[in-house]
Every structure is written in C-alpha cells, then in structure tokens.
C-alpha cells in the first residue's frame, strides 16, 4: 500500500498534471453562484471524466441491446463489452477469476447480498456477526436484518476518540460463535484507514471469513484481494469516478458457490420448470435480471482512466493534499477536526463549536464550496463524539491546495459572521 510513501519533501511528490486532469472532468469548470465550483464532496460521490460520459453515450448510441440472450450482432457486442468490463474489474482488484466478480447496484446491494445469502447458510441462533463502531449504515442495517431473522447477535468493535478501532477489543470479540466479520476499510465520516490486513489475519486464525466495505478505499489506495486474502469485498462505481447504479461484489469462489441466490429471475438460471430450477454458474447466479450494462462499461472506463494515472500516484498526491488541508484548517481557532487517526485518507470532518454544520454548509455553498454536512449515514459515530452532525470535506486527486485555501477562507468568513 502506498500510504507509506511519506513525502518529506516535494521532490517525492508524483508529477501529476492536475491542470490537465481537471480538464478531463467537464463539471469542474462550471460556476456555482458565479463562483468556480470547489467540489469537496468526493466521499459522497465523485465527478465523472469525459471518457466515462462518452462511454455511456457510445454504448447507447451504437451497441445498446440485451446481453447473454440474443443471437444478433448487437447482443453479442454488448455481451462482449459487459464481460470485458468484468475482466477489467477483476484485474483491477487482482481477483483470481471473473467468476468472483459480481455486478451489483452498489456497495449497499453487495453487502445486502452477502448478509442475506451467506447469512442464511451460516448464521444460527446465538451466532455472531462482528462489525465496527464506525460503519456506514449500509454495513449495519443489512446485518441487523439477517441477525434478527436468524436469531443471531450483532457485535460491535469499539473505537477510540481518534476514530481508530481498538484492536485488543477486536481480538477479545473473536470467538467460535462469530460467523463473519464485516468491516469498513476507510471510514466515510472520519477518514480512518483500518488495519484490514491484520484484522483478516486474526479472523482467519479462527476460520472466520471477512468482508471489506471498500466503498471509500478503492479510489484512493491500490487493492489486491489475493494479497489481502479478504473473503468478500464491495465497492460502488460512482465513488470511483464511474456512473451511479453499478457496483461490485468480490467473493471467494468457495463461498459464492456455497451461497444460495440472492434474487431470482432471468439470467441467473440454467433451466426452469415449475418443478425444479437449476441455477446458473458463477457469477451469473447472482445477477438476476438485465443488469446495468452501460454502468458496467462506464465503471470499466473509469478504472481504465484511474489505472492510466496510477493509483500509487493518486494516493501519494491525495495524502499530501490531506496533510496540507489538515495543517491549514488546524490553524483556524475554534475548529476541531473529528477523526484524528494516525492513518487517514482523503476525509476531513470538523466541528465549529456553536456553529451548526447546516449553517456552515449553506455558507460554504454560496462561495462555491460543496461539502457534506450531517451525520454521513454514520449515526453511531456522531453519538461517539456527542455531536448532532459534522461538516465534511473530502478530497480527490483533482482537488488542489488553492481549493483548500478557498475552503479555509470561507470557513473563516462563517466564523466571523457568527461571532
């Protein structure tokens, strides 16, 4: 992983041509309230490069048809492109086989799939599912639902006030009743990078499979599922510069084979009669109905774009930007950064004492600065810090230090207005 590439001096900084990168994203040149858009809500969704937009237009203009069905030329082409997109995803996360790559609507659907399908065959009364205190609601609620169904218990690894998992507590929670650990790689509300490699090693010592919520990490740090040895991993297309409505579930073949289908329908079957249906092979068993074909193509294009630049370079640039933003914002009196883990990525959440995040968000918006305010779908994290909400700036490699300065100036203006 590249976040160890500390830049002590600028010499080690990668030579990313940010001006030219910014030109790849048409939306970045628009104005908001007559101010240049400063888009710092990348943890919510990322902007799309022109080649991703073009890919969608190309597909619908030239190829559009249903896959795995028709004998006609268009259907064949669409099927080829869709399967090539799967291969692109497979090689991006270095999975062993295309069978391990299932297209979903997004991270949420991928987690629901595992919770429902894996949960059904593995959870019995009194069993446990282990998550952490910093999970997004999408890695809490699906497990609550299946735990209730199977009379299993949801257990939570606590975090400290820096927003780091307390590893000793995690070790204490591991026991034979735990049937799966599902944990976020990078926290969307705190930016914490969790030690997933160590978590996987410890869980595997007790033969417990581990699911990684990589929604906030695949776009920031290189991921190799073979090297990590995770059992499941999920991410969303729209947070990695691709379209909305497409996501990926990676799962080890041995688990996916053992799991029952999540949804029934076309494409996921081999033969159907009213007496008996034979399910299709992987990965189709888990892709019922016509999938988001254009979305898969757009996602593959986004991955091609990112790997063209190089995730190592992106990670190093974003780390430098986060460090600069942390330093700059730390100098603002009354500003408290929420989430101060030693290993962080790309997210800077803060609190301005008496000033409510919604007021901050509206005021920054008028300066063209788009940030997220609220609970970030992580109510337990807000509860940990006794805060009703926070303001969150989240960075991408197309953001600049100048934009961080605009953010800082705008925050200072807010403080003055409310003083």
């Amino acid at each position: 992983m590249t976040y160890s590439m500390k830049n002590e001096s600028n010499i080690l900084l990668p030579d990313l041509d940010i001006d030219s990168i910014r030109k790849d994203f048409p939306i970045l040149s628009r104005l908001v309230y007559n101010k240049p858009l400063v888009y710092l809500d990348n943890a919510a969704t990322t902007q799309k490069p022109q080649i991703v937009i073009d890919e969608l237009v190309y597909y619908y203009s030239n190829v559009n048809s249903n896959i795995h069905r028709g004998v006609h030329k268009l259907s064949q082409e669409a099927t080829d492109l869709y399967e090539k997109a799967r291969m692109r995803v497979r090689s991006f996360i270095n999975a062993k086989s295309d069978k391990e790559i299932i297209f979903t609507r997004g991270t949420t659907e991928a987690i629901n799939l595992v919770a429902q399908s894996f949960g059904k065959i593995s959870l019995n009364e009194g069993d446990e599912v282990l998550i952490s205190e910093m999970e997004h609601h999408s890695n809490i609620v699906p497990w609550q639902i299946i735990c209730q169904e199977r009379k299993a218990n949801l257990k939570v690894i606590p975090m400290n006030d820096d927003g780091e998992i307390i590893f000793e507590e995690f070790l204490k929670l591991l026991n034979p009743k735990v049937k799966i650990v599902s944990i976020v790689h990078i926290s969307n509300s705190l930016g914490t990078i969790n030690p997933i490699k160590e978590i996987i090693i410890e869980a595997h010592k007790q033969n417990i499979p581990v699911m990684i919520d990589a929604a906030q990490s695949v776009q920031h740090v290189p991921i190799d599922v073979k090297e990590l040895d995770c059992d499941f991993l999920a991410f969303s297309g729209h947070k990695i510069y691709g379209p909305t409505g497409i996501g990926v579930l990676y799962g080890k073949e041995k688990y996916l084979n053992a799991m029952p289908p999540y949804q029934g329908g076309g494409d996921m079957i081999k033969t159907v009669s009213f007496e008996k249906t034979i399910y299709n092979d992987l990965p189709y068993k888990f892709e019922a109905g016509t999938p988001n074909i254009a979305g898969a193509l757009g996602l593959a294009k986004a991955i091609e774009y990112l790997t063209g630049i190089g995730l190592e370079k992106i990670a190093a640039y974003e780390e430098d930007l986060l460090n600069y933003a942390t330093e700059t914002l730390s100098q603002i009196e009354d500003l408290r950064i929420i989430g101060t883990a030693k290993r962080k990525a790309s997210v800077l959440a803060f609190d301005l004492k008496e000033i409510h995040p919604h007021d901050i968000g509206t005021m920054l918006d008028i300066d063209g600065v788009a940030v997220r305010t609220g609970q970030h779908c992580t109510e337990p994290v807000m509860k940990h810090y006794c805060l009703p909400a926070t303001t969150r700036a989240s960075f991408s490699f197309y953001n600049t230090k100048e934009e961080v300065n605009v953010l800082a100036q705008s925050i200072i203006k807010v403080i003055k207005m409310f003083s």
Partner: protein
Amino acid sequence: MNELQELYQQVILDHNKNPRNFGEIHNCNHHAAGHNPLCGDQIEVFLSVEEATGLITDVKFKGAGCAISKASASIMTTLLKGKPIEEAKKLFDSFHEIVTSDPNSETDVMNLGKLAVFCGVREFPARVKCASLAWHTMLNALENPEIVTSNDEEKGNG
C-alpha cells in the same frame, strides 16, 4: 453574497445567539417534540393555553439545531405570546407561505412583520425544513397535547 445576507439577516443571527423564551414550562398544558431525522435537529415546544379564552399565555422552546431552526423557534415564541390559538394557526399559514412560495413571486413584505426575515429561506430549498420545524411542532402541540413531530412531508431535505 446577497442570497446569504438575506438568509442570515442580523435578526436571525441575533435570535440564534440569544434565543428568546428558551427553556421549559413545567406545568404547561400543550407540549410536543419535533425532530428532523435528516439533520438531527431536535426541538420541544411548551405552551400554556388559557382554556376559557383560548389565549396563549406563555410559550417556550428548547432543543438543538442550526441557526435557522433556532431563530425560527425563537421568533415564533415572541409572536405567539398573548395571541389566541386561532391567530397562532393563521401565523403558521403565513409562515408556511413565506418559506415555501416561489422565490420569484411578489411578496408583500410590509404585511409580514417579523416573519419577513424568513423570506430568504425559500431561496434554499434544503433549509425549508430547518425553518419550519418549530412551527410544525407548535401546531402539533396545540392540536395534540403530547406528540413527536417529524416534518418529513415538508419539501427540502435538510
């Protein structure tokens, strides 16, 4: 900056900093709690209503929220004290009209009195809920003595 100045007028900033009628009425006869599940804003409204005359003799609020929601609650309490229930309901309608009407429509600011400071809210659909939480909660308190309000039906999302 104009929109912002209109949204955060001095009156609003002042009421946010020094909210009027902040606190509880222990022996009130109308009370409701309201919350906005999207942003976590919470408010409680307490009203003492003279049963014979229908006059609101006292009104207080407490809770946590943004400047818009706090100022809105504070200004609301100053308007309601001493008014009959019927007038409180009319004020609710006027307020609702102000924050949800088309930003381009002509508004007769002169007749709005203190409520005129909320004209800026309609420029920010995401903030309509913040401004109206206290008013919905008040209405609920008057209509049902004990209730928790969630203003999900209001347009806007935050």
